């Protein structure tokens, strides 16, 4: 019996990884004694000691900057950025060094590491705790971006990302940290963190989503298929950089209709990138233009208005229905 929530799956993955690889160091704010504000790292410091799990000073630039040094010197740092909105003080180190160390030295120096970030809205949190800035990260060359959507993908993708020789940003949709419980394999396993996952194959419409919105999309679908027995193809994008275009294009060409659902600000977003690429490469097979369901180009509101920002069931179903009938 290994029925775990997302946050527990992450915890299990970290534990198993640290057991297998002595070079893994976990560092972040409040990750040690307390086990992280979401309890992702609970029990790790107790088990592996204070020299492998660190409660760092409050300094994202210090966390990521020193992680670069640790990585250069042979360790595999797993940084936790406490909340998505706090990553920016460390972003300078990411964009100016983490992504470039290999390229600027032509492979002589590299700094593989995992940067874990609670991501996205929907938990009625304080300001800066609900960001969806994945497009910014995907845009930078030199770093991979991965996003699970449930306990099974969380553990498998995390373990796979830890084996990469490249740095990875691991976005953890906090809305589903505790919302989904699933029976997953107890022993370590890997899911290809560069490949999109087709959860259901179909011929009528391609639905692409990721993160917490993947779950919301599924909920909307469950309702829709009560009365419309559509033959949908459901894709969990999983890898935001690099994007698995092979899977996406094959699906788009097959169905001719594509619906993309995420929670970002639409302008210059990841959905815009997907839409452009699908049109550029698959237009001969499309029946209708790609449809995007996103947030808005605004700052995500605080809890009293947050639900109006995030794609609601209504927003998703309206778009889905329009596309089905197109």
């Amino acid at each position, binding site marked *: 019996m290994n029925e775990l929530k997302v946050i527990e799956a992450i915890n299990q993955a970290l534990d198993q990884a640290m057991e297998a690889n002595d070079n893994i160091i976990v560092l972040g704010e409040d990750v040690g004694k307390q086990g992280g504000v979401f309890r992702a790292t609970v029990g790790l410091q107790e088990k592996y000691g204070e020299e492998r799990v660190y409660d760092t000073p409050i300094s994202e630039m210090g966390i990521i900057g020193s992680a670069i040094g640790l990585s250069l010197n042979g360790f595999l740092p797993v940084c936790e950025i406490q909340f998505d909105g706090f990553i920016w003080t460390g972003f300078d180190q990411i964009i100016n060094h983490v992504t470039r160390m290999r390229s600027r030295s*032509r492979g002589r120096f590299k700094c593989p590491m995992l940067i874990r970030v609670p991501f996205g809205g929907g938990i009625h949190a304080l300001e800066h705790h609900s960001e969806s800035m994945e497009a910014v990260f995907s845009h930078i060359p030199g770093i991979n971006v991965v996003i699970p959507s449930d306990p099974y993908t969380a553990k498998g993708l995390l373990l796979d990302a830890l084996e990469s020789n490249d740095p990875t940003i691991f976005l953890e949709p906090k809305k589903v940290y505790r919302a989904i419980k699933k029976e997953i394999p107890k022993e370590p396993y890997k899911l290809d963190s560069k490949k999109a996952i087709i959860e259901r194959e179909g011929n009528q419409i391609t639905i692409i989503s990721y993160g917490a919105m993947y779950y919301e999309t599924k909920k909307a679908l469950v309702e829709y298929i009560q009365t419309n027995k559509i033959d949908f193809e459901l894709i969990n994008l999983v890898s935001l950089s690099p994007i698995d275009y092979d899977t996406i294009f094959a699906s788009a060409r097959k169905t001719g209709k594509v619906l993309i659902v995420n929670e970002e600000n639409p302008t210059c977003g990841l959905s815009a990138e997907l839409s452009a690429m699908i049109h550029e490469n698959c237009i001969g097979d499309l029946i209708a233009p790609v449809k995007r369901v996103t947030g808005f180009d605004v700052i995500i509101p605080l809890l009293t208005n947050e639900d109006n920002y995030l794609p609601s069931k209504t927003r998703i179903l309206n778009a889905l229905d329009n596309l089905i009938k197109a």
Partner: protein
Amino acid sequence: MQLDGNKHSIFKNYDHQSSEMFSVLDFQGNILHRDFVNEFKEKDLLKIYKWMQKIRIADKKCINMQRTGQMGTYLSVRGQEACQVGATYLLNKDDWLLPAFRETGMMQIMGVELSKIILYWMGNEKGSQVPDNVNVLPISICVGSHIPHAAGIGWGERLKKGRRIALASFGDGATSEGDFHAGLNFASMYNAKTIFFCQNNQYAISTSRKIQTKSKTIAQKAIAYDMPHVQVDGNDVLAILKTMQQAIDLAREHNTPTFIEAVTYRLEDHSTSDNSSLYRSQEEEQQAETRDPIKRIEVFMRAQKILNDTNKQEIIDKVTKEIDEQIEKAKRESVPAADSMFTYLLSETYPELERQRDLLLNEINQ
């Protein structure tokens, strides 16, 4: 960490409120601390002097190369030769050097061939591709951003129970950046085998040290991190060497990071695109020339009868020849392959990237 009264005397005795900056020779090259001076052997002094001349002459040639269109923007180290040699001469060959962008001499001493350095300033990434046994990181342009890296390396080295030291070199301006504080805080917190070396050359481009920070010394910023620190005369190579000897002991043997502020002067413009006459006077520059670190060590070495006109010229001729060979080597090196921008991005490529690489290659072959 209890500082040893002998082995760490310089740090132990330094008090920013009452101490002068630490010197071994005075501005004219006369001896201030005879006992310290006696530790330096003739063989070493000649090597040290040779390095200083090599750095000076190479620097001049690099400036000329820029002015004749053979190189891109170049940042001179003239006037800072004592810092360059003093900071690195006593390190081991496998210690880490994290340069900012005014460490040409330090990089050479730590094993990076001058030809590689020239390639970098020519705009060729091959210049940063140092041999596997040389632990000198690529030049870091974002001011101060490499300082936390040094903390991480030194921290990791301690965890590994290793003995290598990480030396980060940076200027007075860098100490204003957040990364400086994050780096010192982490290094101190985690007992990193790190030495933080600040070449205070009085200017961050046009911004004079006086308006960079209100702190009376830069060294005292380390007090906040409970880190041993000292302000040293950055044009006195013997003083820096002596200080580094103690800092190395603290890092290697005691996992104690230190902060050294070396007070020097940037004799040239900030870069070959800069014009320092816009913000500093000729009088000031001329005054600084009188404190030239090479002149100073020469006075001392001549007084000790180690240096004379003959062997000085021999040294100059020898290093000039070495430098010219390295310049030729750099010029012979090819530019990177066009698609190398794809090759070194990640350890594992992916289809879209390959497609873009093909686009470029097709374009070139047209």
